[in-house]
């Protein structure tokens, strides 16, 4: 007789091994189904897990850059608003200079205009003390001290730039050269306005109409230049935002491809494995009961 003998414990061992492996497959399919993840442990697919960790890190980075951009946009808008209110002040001052250069005006009227110019200068200084969050935005990196005080025209900020990273190694510069544009006692809008006020008080109408007006125009040009630079940054941020948005979408999709279970496929898998498991159990229950013993009397 050449056929292998089959004993009960062989049947038992084979049956148990089959039932156990079927149960393990069901458990695995169940884990995928309940977590919705293809990868539940590094050993499920070590390469894919490595890739998933990398993609998660990339996604975290992209989302951080998005936060940086939106923070930069807030800062940029605050600067833009401040600069346009400074612009309004300068335009009003220009009207007053033209008015004050009129020789028909009495000195007391010119004194009144000079007072208004001083008020405008104070207005510009307090506008330049604007804050975004708890940071002064026109003081360079000296964000904790106000750039201007009411007692004098000294600029107490610095010329260091404020920048935000919007991609690895790519910065946007958000600062303007406050000392040159807004100025202090030595130059810029503030100094021009101070000269104008003193010329008004001393009645130097000739200087008002010529040098003062052209100095104010030059200072105004500087301001408009700064405004347009800030405006350009806004565009840069907007395009960065849409680029990062796309990048986030792509990375999220890649991550989902690597990490997430295909639910339809997983469900079919689960049903198949479960059916296999049930079949193994049923077959086992029948097989294990029968022997010649059942048929001998």
């Amino acid at each position: 007789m050449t056929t292998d003998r089959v004993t009960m414990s062989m049947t038992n061992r084979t049956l148990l091994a089959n039932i156990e492996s079927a149960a393990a497959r069901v458990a695995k399919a169940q884990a995928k189904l309940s977590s919705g993840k293809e990868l539940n442990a590094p050993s499920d697919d070590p390469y894919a897990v490595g890739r998933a960790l990398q993609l998660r890190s990339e996604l975290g980075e992209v989302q951080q850059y998005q936060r940086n951009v939106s923070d930069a946009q807030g800062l940029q808008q605050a600067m833009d608003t401040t600069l346009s209110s400074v612009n309004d002040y300068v335009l009003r001052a220009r009207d007053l200079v033209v008015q004050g250069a009129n020789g028909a005006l009495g000195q007391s009227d010119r004194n009144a205009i000079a007072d208004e110019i001083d008020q405008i200068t104070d207005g510009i200084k307090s506008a330049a003390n604007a804050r975004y969050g708890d940071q002064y935005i026109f003081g360079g990196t000296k964000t904790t001290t106000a750039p201007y005080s009411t007692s004098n025209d000294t600029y107490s900020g610095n010329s260091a730039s404020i920048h935000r990273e919007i991609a690895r190694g790519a910065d946007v510069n958000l600062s303007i050269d406050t000392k040159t544009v807004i100025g202090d006692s030595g130059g810029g809008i503030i100094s021009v306005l101070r000269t104008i006020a003193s010329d008004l008080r001393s009645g130097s109408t000739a200087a008002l109409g010529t040098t003062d007006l052209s100095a104010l125009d030059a200072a105004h040009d500087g301001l408009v230049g700064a405004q347009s630079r800030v405006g350009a940054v806004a565009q840069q941020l907007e395009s960065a935002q849409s680029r990062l948005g796309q990048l986030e979408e792509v990375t999220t999709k890649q991550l989902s491809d690597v990490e997430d279970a295909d639910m339809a496929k997983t469900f079919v898998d689960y049903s198949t494995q479960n059916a296999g498991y049930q079949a193994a159990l049923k077959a086992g229950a029948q097989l294990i009961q029968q022997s010649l013993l059942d048929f001998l009397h």
Partner: protein
Amino acid sequence: MSISSFLGIETALRGLEAQQRALDVTGTNITNANTPGYTRRVATLVETQGLRDVPAGVLGTGVSVQSYTRIRDGVLDYQARGQGMLLGYQTARRDGLSQVEATLSEPSDTGLSSLFDKFWSSWQDLANQPTSTAARQAVLGSAQSVAGAIQGLQSRLTQIDGDTQQGITTTINDLNDTVSQIARLDDAISSQTKTGQQVDGGLLDQRDLMLDKLSSLANVTITPQADGSTTLAIGSFTLLSSGTQTQVTSVSALGSNLTSGKLAGLVSLDTSIAGSGGYLSELDTLASSLISAVNTQQAAGYTLNGSASTQAFFTGTDASSIAVNSALTADSSLIAASGAPNEPGNGDNALAIANLRGSTSIDGAYQSLVTEIGSDSREAQRNADVAQTLSDAVENKRESVMGVSIDEEMANLVRFQRGYQASARVMNAMDDVLQTLIERTGRVGL
């Protein structure tokens, strides 16, 4: 030469006895069908010496039981034990590595990998808002999470390694115990062999079971001796020879002789975790890279009040000691976010730290550690599955030879029962013949 009239009765009696012994063996087989290590027995029947009946030839005189034979195949034993070693080795590795893998809890939102992400992001946020206390606290919080997670991982790996070493000690004790049990069985077996007795099959079964167990523990070479005893060795390390046992005191006593079995599996697991270049040392390297990279950058920066940084960010040197400097947790303004003196709004240094993200010696190294552990664990799972399949196959083969088949025993039961009945009938016939002889002869004319 004439044949005794009573020969037939003797023949029938031998038949009854032989069939009954065979039934006894069948009964023993059936009752031991589920006994681990039981080898089925067969009563080997032989024809008894005949009587010369000149000139007809030789007249048969019946049957007797020559021996009770254990049905076992030494080659299959050898194969099964070889697979047992591999299975022991791979199962030990698989079980340990699946624990190691579980401690990582990757990929998830709670693993070290995502804590690293949060850590680097908090530095970016600080770079955006260098003067914000909230941003500074967030950096400290996320740094404490990272340090805590690294320490936790380190202590769990150490714990698993401790369990593994405990397992090695237990396995060595188990191995010594098994060898001493085999030595005792050997003693009994060889004393029976020396006195020329048939050796008790039960003793042999027990010894085979012990040898199976021993083989699953280590790569043991089994050499049977003429006196029925065995010589056991792991490579060139002799465990048992001529009844003298050498105790294994430690794994190092075995050295490179140990190549397979549960013990070797545990030793290799221990090396993977705590050996040089193992998971723990990779974690230590990663932690010290993190500490030195962040501290170097922190030292290059300036605190919120504008002065040069004097406090380290992390304290400690490796995975077990990494912690956030308590001076910083007490005063978050000491975090050197600024890249220049007296510029509180400068976040350049924080940005430089944030840009350590993805460094191949820090979070990149962690990703490769996860991939490495995953690969090791997957390989161990596959190898263990293969070893299990092969072991099941050869066990089945062995069982096919030595195991008790209830069907077969039932058939034998019927066969020997019928044989017994038929022998009884023969005796009955002989009895009838003698009755005729005694009662009917010599009565002519009565």
